[in-house]
């Protein structure tokens, strides 16, 4: 079957979810032995399409051919048998199993697994050599770095005989250097005739690694291109359907007094694991301080401590005239009263309550405000009116305070949270992942609002995993790796390569902090 010229062919594949037309007569043909990129905004239908290939969903209509054979998959096993392997965005690994045990999961063979373990060991050693995918087989997966875990996922696919590998946003959790390593593996796989489908929204990756690229927008396949004959600008326009401002115009920051000064912070997360140590910085009024880093390097923990959710283990934070220390903590309510607003990283679980109506979600954190409470009575009509007015101010649709929060789109949910936090005129804003998983239109709107707040003299601390976001809106950037600050850069002189090395903490030490020490 490997001789076939076309690995995967989709003809008029259609899929509805209720009223959502997730895939609208999608056609796609992927040539054997190529790297084929699929780009599109969140919600464009890329993941649905791949889930149909992998047997998670069934298409409503249309035809799928894998290596020229008609293919209908109702579960992942059938897809694996047809030679399709998938590496999910969130790894499907058993953390406390060894690499070897993880790989044979689902193909254990007989009742006793020793035999299949031995077989797998021989086979894996061969695969690892052939594709340059060296991984230690007897180490528990939890002890491996994220990049290594991803290799295990790829090995798992190959071990099960995958001829086509689908990777869903594989670089989202990697440093730029780890990504390069991954791309090197792609090349090796390609040489051996493996077909790779790469789902991503990062155009840089598409341009540097793929042979062909298909663009999805609103459920439709809008373009197929040979990568060498296209450019990022064209792809971006195809993805969004109009020209976009990828960089937002902003004036130079007029920074003023420091409103938040962090001294030598050490913070443990909810599980009691030390995630932040020796972190010091200051956030000044009229300035956006971006905190960059690969997910899970302590930024989230730091954010929670700044917002009063986690206590400090060491160090102190001076904030708007108060001092937080391991002995004296302020809870989120007290910080809000002081003038600190917090937009949490996890909007679904923390920022709002899906089962509450919008006006109640817009009250979260401010339920004790004097204006809306009269004695014991919470004035719901006033709460509703307030919600309506912020909905208009932030163009949140539908403008209905009685609608369940879960019924708003991601972008509108995020705008609701921002509106709630911005409208109380805070002095310090702590913002986590402001634009994660939302549409481009809302992204532009939100970034502009953040810059407006800066120009109004607020001190803003911005945490984002999107390096592009950090670079385009912050004025000063600190980079975190493994809970420590590995670099401080002025946004004007920041470049992706340096930041990437700082994110991985591989920058030669003499270069650290030299470029942009804050002159105060």
């Amino acid at each position, binding site marked *: 079957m490997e001789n076939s010229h076309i690995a995967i062919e989709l003809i008029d594949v259609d899929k509805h979810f209720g009223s959502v037309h997730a895939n609208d007569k999608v056609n796609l043909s992927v040539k054997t032995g190529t790297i084929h990129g699929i780009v599109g905004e969140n919600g464009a239908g890329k993941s649905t399409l791949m889930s149909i290939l992998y047997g998670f969903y069934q298409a409503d209509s249309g035809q799928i051919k894998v290596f020229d054979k008609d293919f209908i998959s109702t579960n992942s096993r059938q897809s694996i048998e047809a030679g399709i392997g998938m590496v999910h965005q969130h790894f499907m690994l058993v953390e406390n199993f060894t690499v070897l045990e993880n790989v044979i999961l689902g193909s254990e063979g007989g009742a006793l697994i020793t035999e299949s373990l031995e077989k797998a060991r021989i086979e894996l050693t061969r695969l690892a050599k052939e594709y340059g995918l060296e991984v230690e087989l007897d180490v528990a997966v939890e002890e491996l770095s994220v990049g290594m875990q991803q290799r295990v996922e790829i090995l798992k696919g190959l071990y099960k005989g995958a001829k086509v590998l689908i990777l869903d946003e594989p670089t989202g959790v990697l440093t730029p250097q780890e990504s390069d390593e991954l791309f090197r593996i792609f090349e090796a796989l390609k040489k051996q005739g493996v077909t790779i489908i790469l789902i991503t929204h990062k155009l840089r990756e598409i341009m540097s690694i793929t042979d062909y690229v298909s663009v999805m927008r609103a459920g439709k396949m809008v373009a197929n291109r040979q990568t060498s004959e296209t450019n990022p600008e064209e792809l971006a326009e195809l993805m969004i359907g109009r020209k976009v401002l990828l960089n937002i115009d902003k004036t130079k920051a007029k920074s003023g007094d420091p409103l938040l000064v962090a001294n030598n912070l050490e913070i443990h997360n909810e599980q009691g694991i030390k995630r932040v140590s020796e972190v010091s910085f200051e956030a000044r009024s009229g300035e956006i301080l971006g905190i960059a880093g690969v997910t899970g390097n302590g930024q989230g923990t730091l954010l929670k401590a700044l917002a009063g959710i986690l206590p400090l283990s060491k160090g102190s934070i001076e904030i708007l005239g108060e001092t937080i220390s391991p002995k004296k903590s302020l*809870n989120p309510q007290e910080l809000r009263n002081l003038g600190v607003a917090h937009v949490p990283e996890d909007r679904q*679980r923390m920022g709002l309550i899906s089962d509450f109506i919008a006006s109640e979600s817009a009250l*979260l954190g401010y339920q004790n405000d004097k204006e809306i409470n009269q004695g*014991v009575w919470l004035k719901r009509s006033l709460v509703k009116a307030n919600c309506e007015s912020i909905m208009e101010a932030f163009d949140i649709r539908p403008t209905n305070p009685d609608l369940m929060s879960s019924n708003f789109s991601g972008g509108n949910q995020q705008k609701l949270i921002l509106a709630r936090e911005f409208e109380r005129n805070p002095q310090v804003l702590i913002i986590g992942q402001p634009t994660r998983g939302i549409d481009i239109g809302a992204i532009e709107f939100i970034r502009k609002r953040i810059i407006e707040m800066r120009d109004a003299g607020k001190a803003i601390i911005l945490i984002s995993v999107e390096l592009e976001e950090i670079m385009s809106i912050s004025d000063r950037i600190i980079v975190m790796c493994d809970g420590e600050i590995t670099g401080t850069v002025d946004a004007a002189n920041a470049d992706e390569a340096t930041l990437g090395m700082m994110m991985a903490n591989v920058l030669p030490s003499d270069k650290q902090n030299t470029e942009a020490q804050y002159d105060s």
Partner: protein
Amino acid sequence: MTRDRRLAWINGLLLPLFNVLTAFLATAVVFLFIGVDPIEATKILIYGALGYDEGLGYTLYYATNFVFTGLAVAVAFHAGLFNIGGEGQAYVGGLGIALVALYIDPTLSAWLVIPLAISGGLLFGALWAIIPAYLQAYRGSHIVITTIMFNFLASALMVYMLVHVLREVGQMSPESRNFPEVVWLPFVHDVFARFGYNIAKSPLNLSILVALFFSLLVWFFLWHTRWGFAIRATGKSNDAAVYSGINPKKIIVVTMCISGALAGLVGVNELIGVQHRLFLNFNYGYGFGGIAVALMGRNHPVGILIAALLFGILYQGGAELDFELQNVSRDIVVVMQGLVILFCGGLEYLYRPLLIRFLAPIET
């Protein structure tokens, strides 16, 4: 009607209705098995529960207990806590009421004594819930396990209290002496008689007004105060509660106290309302019944009032069935209750996909 609104109607009204009807249908099958005509049985049950004023009085008297325990379960549920300990909290709450009733100066005004007795029930019910609450909040012991254990502890405690402390000297049965008359809540038939209406005697007493008052209070508290907001927020999303500055541990303790206090009011109806003394197992079955009532009533006071009425009907009508039909014993009530719990609790969403498909299809 918008789809959201239709969904709300389906969830709030149609679903419980269909579930209850299914439970009745299943009960009808049980009746057929034991050789009873289900239609005949239904007639007897309805007439016995609602057909004449004494039966109606009994029905409402039973319903009163279920309102208290139903509210107790519902309040805890809004904070995401499953309080299985209503049984024990009701029991110990009764002790609080009895202690006030037995040891207060009987020359005081009823206007003072009765509220004090009610407060005794609230306080002791809350105290009995506070230890499981603390263990859940600060030690991570699961509230379901601890509240069940506390039901047994309550049982043992009450036997001890009644046998060794409160039993009258020379009295053989484990019960307290009678409460002074000043603490008795008037029977409804007495109140009616005072205004010149004669209705049949029944245990129905003014506790039913207490139950209505607390239903209103719970509704206001949960949906119209900032504390209710905090409780509901914690129940829906612990992370969001923490984010907003609410301390979920405190919420657990406070909510369980409120829940226990509400359960503790069963004694108001049973002790100062009807029996006028403390005795063993006066709480029997009401705590657990309250779980079914809350489930059926969707944890909303209005729903709880309706569900409690239904359970009152089952209790009273079931007693009537036992009396009227030879091959039916009073246990049929337990069977019906079990079926209602099965269909309203365990199989809560059985009809949901069907109802949504027919009544609120997704617009395309």
